[in-house]
């Protein structure tokens, strides 16, 4: 037993290593990336050769994790909240097949959208799939949640979600570790048809999964992650979930706080405790990070006159990340505030790095499009989304991973010309390939630009599965070889590059242009480590 300083993400990874995991599967995405990065650097994980390389995307990661669970081993799929949308198909169906070896789906939400396109709440997904969800409130609970989650998963033969949020994923604290457990031995499912979702089997499985919910509720009622602290003053009761519990305690620990508190870190909601607090208290304040998931569920719990307060009635902000001050206000406690920040302070929007290859690519695209004002540039998720900002103003859209190619295709089908898709190399292998196949099949008139900086840049420089194979893959998909053009995005190549863009825009068919130059950040790191 020792105490180490770990990020929430790292505590989860260390917990999994100590709980005898055999493989991690994931795709980088803020704020979840540091889970697998930690494992990749961990000596024990390397020695035991725990699976830790990146997957092509969250769907392949989730399916690979289900495969490892099929083999009886403990495993974890990791992703950010919007990554779960990509993995939604196997995720939802894994609740139907269930698990053999312990299966944890670790999803890191990003309320306030620090680095994301939306702030969807993954607890909705856990509820949707009818599986348990653990929502740790601190780093130590992250660590414990893995041991407990694997046991829960193996007991109920179900996948278990662990939901993290930015503030926990990226916050460091001391974590006391336990003795390491051995990995599970290879073993097949007791029921050879467990993972066979033919409709006839699915109906039987669903008939078991639905009634199982009562047992999952009971597990929540008895869970060490949930806690009921009674209090004599029943004019108000508090249900505090995950990080919401921290913000509550920050405010009330030094006060003589007499209201009942239900801390929730495991779902489905612990029915008994929720019914008790709802029955006994005149009002219940729900403090939860993310969307008003529990607040909405409470309305179905007991009829009666208990007033429910939270994000829906305006006691807490409807959107965005919570903080201790929001909670102080909701509790009617005196609030504190320093001084307003002076008006002369300017914002510093994130920007492409000095020397970034994307800058040269965007300059060439902008110039090539000068004469065709109806041309549109459909972009994607990555550092290059920053090309929207001045001085580049180079792109028109950003929807989700892979949507550059497919949106450009739809726009081209509608008659937009030139239609240009801009996608990163890692994003192309994540979910651009199938879109490009659609384009080739339909012989669309468009240009796909695959910005090859040889890394997954935005999340800090992870490697990816398709490295070194862009041309081969495009050719294999049926893009004509003479319309796969590799250029070097450097200022001195500018005129030449513009010419390539003009030629391929003029070509009536599918063109792929690959501006290739390494990310300046990963290059810097490499040079530093060589010194």
């Amino acid at each position, binding site marked *: 037993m020792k105490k180490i300083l770990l990020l929430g993400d790292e505590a989860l990874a260390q917990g999994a290593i100590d709980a005898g995991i055999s493989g991690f599967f994931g795709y980088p995405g803020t704020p979840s990336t540091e889970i697998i990065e930690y494992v990749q650097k961990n000596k024990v994980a390397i020695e035991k050769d725990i699976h830790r390389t990146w997957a092509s995307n969250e769907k392949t990661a989730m399916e690979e994790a289900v495969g490892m669970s099929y083999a009886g081993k403990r495993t974890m799929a990791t992703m950010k909240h919007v990554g779960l949308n990509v993995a939604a198909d196997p995720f939802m169906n894994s609740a139907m097949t269930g698990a053999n070896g312990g299966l944890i789906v670790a999803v890191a939400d990003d309320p306030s959208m620090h*680095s994301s396109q939306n702030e969807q709440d993954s607890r909705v997904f856990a509820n949707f799939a009818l599986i348990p969800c653990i929502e740790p409130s*601190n780093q130590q609970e992250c660590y414990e949640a893995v041991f407990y989650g694997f046991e829960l998963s193996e007991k109920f033969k179900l996948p278990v979600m662990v939901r993290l949020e930015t503030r926990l994923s*990226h916050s460091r*604290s001391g974590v006391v570790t336990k003795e390491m457990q051995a990995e599970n031995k290879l073993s097949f499912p007791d029921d050879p048809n467990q993972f066979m979702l033919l409709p006839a089997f699915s109906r039987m499985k669903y008939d078991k999964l639905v009634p199982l919910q009562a047992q999952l509720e009971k597990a929540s009622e008895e869970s060490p992650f949930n806690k009921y602290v009674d209090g004599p003053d029943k004019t108000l009761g508090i249900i505090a979930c995950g*990080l919401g519990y921290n913000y509550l*305690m920050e405010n009330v620990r030094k006060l003589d706080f007499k209201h009942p508190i239900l801390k929730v870190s495991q779902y489905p909601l612990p029915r008994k405790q929720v019914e008790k607090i709802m029955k006994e208290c005149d009002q219940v304040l729900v403090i939860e990070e993310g969307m008003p998931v529990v607040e909405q569920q409470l309305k179905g719990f007991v009829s009666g006159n208990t007033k429910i307060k939270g994000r829906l009635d305006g006691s807490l902000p409807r959107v965005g990340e919570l*903080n201790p001050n929001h909670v102080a206000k909701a509790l009617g406690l005196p609030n504190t505030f320093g001084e307003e*920040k002076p008006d002369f302070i*300017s914002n510093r929007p*994130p920007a492409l790095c000095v020397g970034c290859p994307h800058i040269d690519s965007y300059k060439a695209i902008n110039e090539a499009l000068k004469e065709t004002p109806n041309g549109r540039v459909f972009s994607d998720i990555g550092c290059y989304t920053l090309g929207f900002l001045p001085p580049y103003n180079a792109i028109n859209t950003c929807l989700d991973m892979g949507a550059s190619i497919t949106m450009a295709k739809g726009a081209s089908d509608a008659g937009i010309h030139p239609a240009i898709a801009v996608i990163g190399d890692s994003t192309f292998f994540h979910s651009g390939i199938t879109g490009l196949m659609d384009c080739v099949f339909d012989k669309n008139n468009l240009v796909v630009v695959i910005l090859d900086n040889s890394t997954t840049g935005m999340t800090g420089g992870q490697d990816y599965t398709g490295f070194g194979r862009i041309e081969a893959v495009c050719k294999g998909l049926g893009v004509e070889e003479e319309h796969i053009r590799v250029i070097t995005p450097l200022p001195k190549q500018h005129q030449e590059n513009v010419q390539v863009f003009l030629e391929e825009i003029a070509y009536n068919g599918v063109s792929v242009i690959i501006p290739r130059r390494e990310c300046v950040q990963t290059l810097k790191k490499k040079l530093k480590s060589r010194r």
Partner: protein
Amino acid sequence: MKKDIILAGVGGQGILTIATVIGQAAVSSNMFLKQAEVHGMSQRGGDVQSHLRISDQEIFSDLIPMGQADLILSVEPMESLRYLPYLNENGWLIANATPFVNIPNYPEKEEVYNKIKTYKNHVLIDADAIAKEIGSARSMNMVILGAAVKTLGFSLEQIENSIKEIFGKKGDAIVEANIKALRAGFEAGK
């Protein structure tokens, strides 16, 4: 003892190293610690901050409540002011005077300095210049940390020990350079 510290700067200026050094001192003294960092998109030349909380009692929130920070420690002058809503009335404002200008509308330097000087507990030193003077230009962050030592509740020796602990692997020369920078900042901040 409780210290709630906002570390501020621009992505890449080394505030996480400052956090690691203070954190090490806290851990060596068996104190509780929580440190929330910024990763991801905003790191690219954007403003970054870290909430560092140290206490001899359990810490709940990863975020410091507004109006309750004991210290804003900033490696950049304008960035020190961005977090004023967090500072308590007796809090310290400690800032490096060298601006990091990567935006076209950076305010007048004097305006920024004057605002910092309205705080009775402030230190405004040119940590970049001091680091250069002692021949260790890259240790600007340790200079500014040095200036803050008097407010941290740790001795200079404790902070030096954590520098040894953290930079030890990189060799004696690096440790020495950082300690020299720390001491120079400590003197300048007196």
